[in-house]
């Protein structure tokens, strides 16, 4: 079985801590709890998905299962960064799965949304938790997640990756 984490190989997350063989590897249970606690997105959202680690703390999400994948370049979508004090979801994961979030979602007006997706940091009022938030805006008759923001000391920092930013 797995003896150490590998940056070259996908390893399935253990279901629970009792099944954990590798220190510091997140468990499926922890991942589901984190999304539930942080964004109120319940485990039912991910019932049909499996979670994999490749590289230290990089968690990927796959719809369904594959038997031990070896020599694979990518498996589903990069989903979450663990093994650091504050876990951080990816922009793509938040766009795909963050629509139903009811906690730690900061709704931006059109000017703020424009600035956010161009990678600008902005001073904004927010009376919720600090840390990683889902930034969202209203479009085409509904709220839609834009990406991940980091809220600290009255400032919303955009952590939308360079390649995903909106350009003029």
């Amino acid at each position, binding site marked *: 079985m797995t003896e150490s984490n590998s940056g070259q190989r996908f390893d399935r997350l253990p279901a629970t801590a009792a099944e954990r063989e590798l220190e510091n590897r997140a468990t499926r249970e922890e991942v589901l709890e984190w999304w539930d606690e942080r964004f109120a997105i319940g485990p039912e959202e991910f019932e049909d998905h499996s979670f994999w680690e490749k590289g230290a703390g990089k968690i990927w999400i796959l719809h369904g299962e594959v038997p031990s994948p070896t020599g694979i370049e990518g*498996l589903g979508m990069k989903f979450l960064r663990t093994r650091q004090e504050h876990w951080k979801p990816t922009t793509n994961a938040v766009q795909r799965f963050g629509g139903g979030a009811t906690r730690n979602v900061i709704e931006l007006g059109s000017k703020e949304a424009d600035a956010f997706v161009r990678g600008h940091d902005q001073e904004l009022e927010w009376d919720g938790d600090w840390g990683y938030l889902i930034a969202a805006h209203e479009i085409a008759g509904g709220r839609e997640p834009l990406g991940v923001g980091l809220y600290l000391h009255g400032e919303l920092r955009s952590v939308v990756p360079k390649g995903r930013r909106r350009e003029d």
Partner: protein
Amino acid sequence: MEALSRYEPIVDDFEAFLAACERPLPSVVRVNTIKAGVERAKRALEEGDVGYEDREWNPRVLELDTDKPGNTWPYFHGWIHGQEEVSSLPATVLDPQPGERVLDACAAPGGKTAQIAALMDDTGLVVANDNNLGRLSALRFNAERLGLTNVAVTRQDARNYSLKPLSLDAFDRVLVDAPCSCEGTIRKNPDALDEWTLSHVEGVSGVQKGILKRAIQATREGGTVVYSTCTFAPEENEAVVDHVLEAEGCRVVEFESPLDSRPGVTEWDGEEYDESVEKARRYYPHHNDTGGFFCAKLEVTG
């Protein structure tokens, strides 16, 4: 353009064909139904004052009145993806079903992979393969932007593709959108024919035969393989299909073509091909105002 003169005997209204090849392509996108419905994508375009026109044959394909679809909100959200109209044909011909296992053998940069994944409602498994690391990184970027979670990415030479990394015995369907001489992309890339030589066409034809053969071997009996290129050369199209008909257990099957098309040619440059290659379809720029394309559907008979 001179390279295209060899096709005069097989293209009707050749002057119109050449004239179309000199016009730029319309700006066309495909709506990514994994992230948004067609109606919502349209509404967002309207809110952004971006005009669009429907394509009757495929409700998920829209022509936009901007040449920068990447600057719109629907693009940022991964609701639309720039994809030339005729390029969205092979995935619909492949007709993948939810829950199936599908290989996209030459997948980068991933537009067709994403379309296959969406047709499968992001279920089952789509294996997106390419042999070039740089192109694979573009594919991964697109797949993640479009929110796909049923795609596994592999980097192999498709001519001897191994199913071992995924512990699979066979795929239900395989798309071979083969590397080709790209003559049909002249409207998008006016330099496409600058380096044209017959020896390049013949060389790439050998690679295409190898990839299509392996695709058929990797598909279960009764499964489907779609072979497509964006080029006009019969050496890269009908000749490749003809070759695998002799070498592997498969047959060419008809498919309903929603775009105006012409049958595959059975004779070219002194060669004769199996008559069934007529069931393949050729797409010319002057018929649908698209790029040029070739598409053949094969059933694996084992």
